């Protein structure tokens, strides 16, 4: 029973993580795209004058989506029409649970896995679940009983099926190198070093596979340059008949999928929860010094930011006469509190150095932090790609998938197999 509770807890933790990254993604999308296009982006929504650089606007977005009228067009097939957005969200959440977020931890004879579904075929699970995800799009297109939606559904499922092949084949080279399908085991192997100084990350040993995988992953999440399934403004997508929260569910599923793709890219090619040059035993042995260095870093960063925030606050007070005057002061206080917290933690740790269980727990938390940081970066990368590249035409999309990615993935498998044989494994 304790192991069951631990597993259930991890599943819930992972879901909270993936769902709470969604507003951050929306913020990245709106503010990031604004800066890339030399605009200001959302800067009005505020709580007590605090705008958090537009992050508060996400709350306004969500409220708008909830309170919009939920129109169900009369011609739809009600059951399939309603099922599709829920299915799409469910699939997106199910994928995440096999991804390990920290190394295993042994407490009182129980081995805790920081992975919702501990399964030795974790990678196949992801492919299995995403295949079912195609069904949600087809159902949305067909259930809407609208020709544009049906064509959109067809287009998107054709794209998903085509790029799933490239995605699956690009991973096989990685499997050959690591010799396992277990995602946690793969991450553990990425803690080793290549040639004495480079971490043995997937991108180092399988650069072509990493490129192919990330390309196919962008296509799988239906984002530009592969956003033909949606093409909101010109070629109409499968969710044309959806409104309000059902529409929001599709988009939430898309953002969760982006987070999942980023997490999978990180797990397979960028060391997962590994902190480079600090494998778990080393991290546990040096927990105290790592924590002290972190505290020092946080302290310096917060103080520097607090100084910037004081100057900014001065400018705000000249500009505004309303509640917005207060935002600079708010940030100064938050940053100073953060600095004080860092000092407090450092004092406590200096008095009682971390050892035994506490150092192990610290190591897991640090690994989770590293994982979260990497995932956030790659999620941002996907948004960066979206606002940098134009959309493909449908024939270009199919040509790229079948005539470039697929042969390259096959070539990668052959070369990897030959090289591994030559190295004598």
């Amino acid at each position, binding site marked *: 029973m304790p192991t069951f509770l631990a597993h259930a807890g991890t599943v819930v933790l992972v879901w909270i993580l993936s769902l709470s990254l969604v507003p951050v993604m929306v913020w990245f999308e709106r503010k990031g795209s604004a800066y890339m296009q030399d605009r200001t982006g959302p800067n009005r929504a505020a709580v007590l004058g605090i705008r958090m650089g537009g992050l508060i606007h996400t709350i306004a977005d969500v409220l708008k989506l909830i309170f919009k009228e939920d129109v169900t067009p009369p011609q739809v097939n009600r059951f*399939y029409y309603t099922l599709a957005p829920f299915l799409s969200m469910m699939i997106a959440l199910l994928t995440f649970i096999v991804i390990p977020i920290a190394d295993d931890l042994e407490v009182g004879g129980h081995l805790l896995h920081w992975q919702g579904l501990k*399964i*030795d*075929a974790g990678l*196949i*699970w992801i*492919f*299995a*679940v995403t*295949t*079912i995800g*195609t*069904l949600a799009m*087809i*159902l949305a297109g*067909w259930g809407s009983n609208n020709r544009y939606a*049906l064509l959109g559904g*067809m287009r998107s*499922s054709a794209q998903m*099926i085509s790029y799933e092949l490239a995605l699956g084949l690009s991973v096989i080279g990685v499997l050959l190198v690591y010799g396992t*399908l277990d995602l946690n085991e793969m991450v553990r192997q990425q803690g080793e070093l290549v040639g004495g100084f480079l971490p043995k990350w997937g991108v180092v040993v399988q650069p072509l596979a990493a490129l192919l995988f990330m390309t196919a992953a962008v296509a799988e999440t239906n984002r530009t340059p592969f956003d033909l399934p949606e093409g909101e403004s010109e070629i109409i997508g499968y969710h044309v008949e959806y409104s309000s929260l059902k529409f929001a569910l599709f988009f939430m599923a898309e953002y969760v999928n982006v987070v999942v793709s980023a997490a999978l890219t990180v797990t397979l090619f960028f060391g997962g929860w590994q902190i480079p040059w600090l494998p778990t035993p080393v991290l546990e042995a040096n927990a105290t010094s790592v924590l002290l260095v972190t505290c020092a870093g946080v302290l310096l960063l917060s103080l520097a930011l607090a100084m910037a925030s004081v100057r900014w606050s001065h400018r705000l007070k000249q500009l505004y006469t309303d509640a917005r005057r207060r935002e600079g002061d708010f940030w100064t206080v938050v940053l100073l509190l953060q600095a004080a917290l860092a000092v407090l933690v450092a004092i406590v740790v200096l008095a009682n150095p971390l050892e035994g269980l506490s150092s192990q727990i610290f190591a897991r938390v640090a690994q989770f932090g590293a994982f979260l940081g990497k995932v956030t970066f790659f999620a941002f990368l996907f948004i960066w790609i979206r606002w940098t590249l134009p959309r493909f035409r449908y024939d270009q999309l199919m040509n790229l998938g079948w005539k470039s990615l697929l042969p390259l993935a096959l070539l990668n498998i052959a070369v990897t197999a030959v090289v591994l044989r030559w190295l004598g494994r």
Partner: protein
Amino acid sequence: MDAVLFWILAGLSVVGGLVVITGRNPLASALALGLVLIAIAGLFAMLSAHLLFILQLLVYAGAIIVLIVFVIMLLDLDDRRLGEMKIRWGRFGVSAAICLVACVAVLRGVRGLTGLREPVHASFGTVTDVSRLLFGPYLVQFEILGLILLVGILGAVVLAKRGG
């Protein structure tokens, strides 16, 4: 816990199976088939056949159902073309009875086999274990299956080219 899960999964697969054969709408039948396949995948997982569980989801619940749904949607069946659906209860009952007898016979036969009651070893159903079997004792059969699939794909391509 196990018994509850078993009855839920078994019930889902039976209900799904009934919907598959009695449903008038082909898409409803296809989705019910998906439900049956997922429930059976769950039963595989309860028998600690992990790899089989995932492959069932990937190949049957994923690929095959998507293919079937695709075909049904492309055919664009409307109510007029589907016509009246009559269930011939006599035939239905007779075939159900025959199936029941056959199932009971098979089950009795299986129960008679020795060596079924021993608990499976720890690595049973894992990727390593299944792969050892596939690439060990059953290598020839496995490769022949691969060849048959390849021939099937080539056949499909030839037929598609001729049609176009």
